Structure formats: C-alpha cells, structure tokens
C-alpha cells in the first residue's frame, strides 16, 4: 500500500476515522452477544406460548416432534448456544448483557420445554441456575398427581430429544442438543463425513 493511502486511512482525526464502517471490536462482540441472547429469548418465549399448560411429562411423541420442528426452523440457535460465551468473554462488562441474561433465565420457566434443554447449558455458559419445578405437595386429594413419572429423568429426556431429532433428520437440532449437553461425547457428521 502506498504511504499516502495508508496515511489517508489511518489518520486519527481524518475523514476515514469518522466513517460508519469504523469498527470497535469490543462493541461488535457485545452486539453479537446481545443478538444471540435476544434470539434465545425470542425462541424460548415462543415455546412457552405454544405449550403453556402442558408439563413435559405428559408430552406425546407428536408434541416432541412439533417442538423439534420448530427448533429446526431457527438456524441461529446452534451458533448462539455454542459461541455466546465466547462473545461475552470478549466484551466483559458490556452494558445491557446482564439484563438480557436475566431475561433469558426468567423466560425459562419449568413449564417451558426450553427449560429442560438448557438446564445444563445455563450453568456452564452463563453461570446461572434455573429454578426447578416445585414438587407437588403430598395430600390425599392430589395423590395421583404427585406420583413421579419415570422415564423422564434429565438423561432420559435428552435421549428422547436426540433420538427423535436424528430420526427426523433434523441435523441442526441434533447439533444444538449436543452443544447444550456436554456430557455426550460424539461428533455430528454428514454423509460425506464433513
């Protein structure tokens, strides 16, 4: 690059310095982190409206499939789950992000299916804890409701998501499921091994 061109571009008080394309790296990471959080809040909000009163223990296969189909229509979820922490680490102390994190945690109520998906992820990536569903009190009047439904332990639930997602060929969802639960040690590959 010719010296005059370099001077033109790098002059601190010059024309180029005031252009809209001037980039502040920390600010950009904060914006991307905010976008990721807003995207997750947006997706979680949708879910809680779709399945407001239905506890996941009573979901049928059709419910699971509908929910996985919804997740598959949200292609940024995988990126947000995987790289949000990276972006947040590059803009520590950025204003607005703690509020967005609080809003995400608030959106993840126990009757929201995303609650079950993100329980581990919220701890490992946001250093937050979701408040678990309170057990129904034992009493004679609601005895039948207090019986714990087996088969839907966190591991059982995770496996059910994964099996259905894989069977339906929803590779984006399967990838996201593997990101949110780092205890699973497998790689997702396409038919070409990529």
């Amino acid at each position: 690059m010719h010296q005059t061109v370099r001077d033109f571009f790098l002059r601190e008080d010059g024309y180029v310095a005031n252009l809209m394309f001037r980039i502040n790296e920390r600010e950009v990471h904060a914006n991307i982190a905010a976008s990721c959080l807003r995207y997750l809040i947006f997706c979680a909000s949708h879910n809680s409206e779709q399945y407001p009163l239905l506890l996941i223990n009573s979901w049928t296969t059709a419910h699971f499939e509908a929910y996985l189909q919804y997740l598959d229509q949200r292609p940024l979820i995988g990126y947000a789950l995987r790289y949000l922490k990276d972006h947040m680490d590059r803009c520590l102390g950025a204003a607005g992000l703690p509020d967005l994190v609080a809003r995400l945690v608030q959106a993840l109520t126990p009757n929201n299916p995303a609650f079950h998906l993100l329980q581990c992820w919220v701890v490992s990536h946001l250093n937050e804890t979701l408040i678990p569903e309170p057990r129904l009190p034992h009493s004679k009047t609601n005895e039948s409701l207090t019986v714990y439904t087996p088969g839907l332990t966190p591991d059982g639930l995770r496996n059910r998501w994964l099996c259905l997602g894989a069977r339906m060929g929803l590779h984006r969802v399967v990838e996201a499921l593997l990101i949110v639960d780092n205890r699973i040690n497998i790689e997702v590959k396409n038919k070409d091994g990529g």
Partner: protein
Amino acid sequence: MGEGSNASNHRDLYGFREIPATAPSLNSLIGEQISKLVLFARRPLKVLELQHALAIQDLPETLTPSMEEPFNDSLIMNMERRIIHCGRNLMEMRGHRVYSHRTYILPSI
C-alpha cells in the same frame, strides 16, 4: 514515484471528501451489519444464520411471543444476492457459508 504523482494521489484521495455526506442507504446499513457479523463471528456463518441474525437485530428491545410475525417479516429475502450486493468484493460465499477477506481488511486481528 515522483513528487508530482504524490501530490496527485493526495488530491485524488482527499477528493473523497467531496462525496456528499447524505444519510446512508438501507443497503449500506445492511452491508455494515453483515460485515461486522461476518468479520467477528467465531466461525463462518451460514447464509440462514446470517439472515436470522440480521432479523433479530431489527426487532424491538422487548421480545414477546407476538414477535413471531414481525420476525418473519424482517427476514431478508434473496439473502445470497443481498450478501453479494452489500458485501461488494469483501465477502464471498462457499458452500452456503459466508467468508470475509479478513486478512486484507484487518491484518492486525
């Protein structure tokens, strides 16, 4: 290069000042957003990911379930063409992913 050419280069460069500082067009604003996302994403973004990242930035601060329709309306149609148009020669698409010529733009990063 002689002194005369140098002076001429200065004139040409500072001629950019003569470009009227009008409000940026929609395409240049989208181009700015795309550039930042592509340059600072932790991996090359897929076209669909970029499309959704731009759409979520368009939504108001308060996100509610009723935002589903506005969100879908914000999704840019013909995203590939928009990336080519707004990204000019600074970006390229390979296998549904968007790459920047980062080494030419930000050699220090």
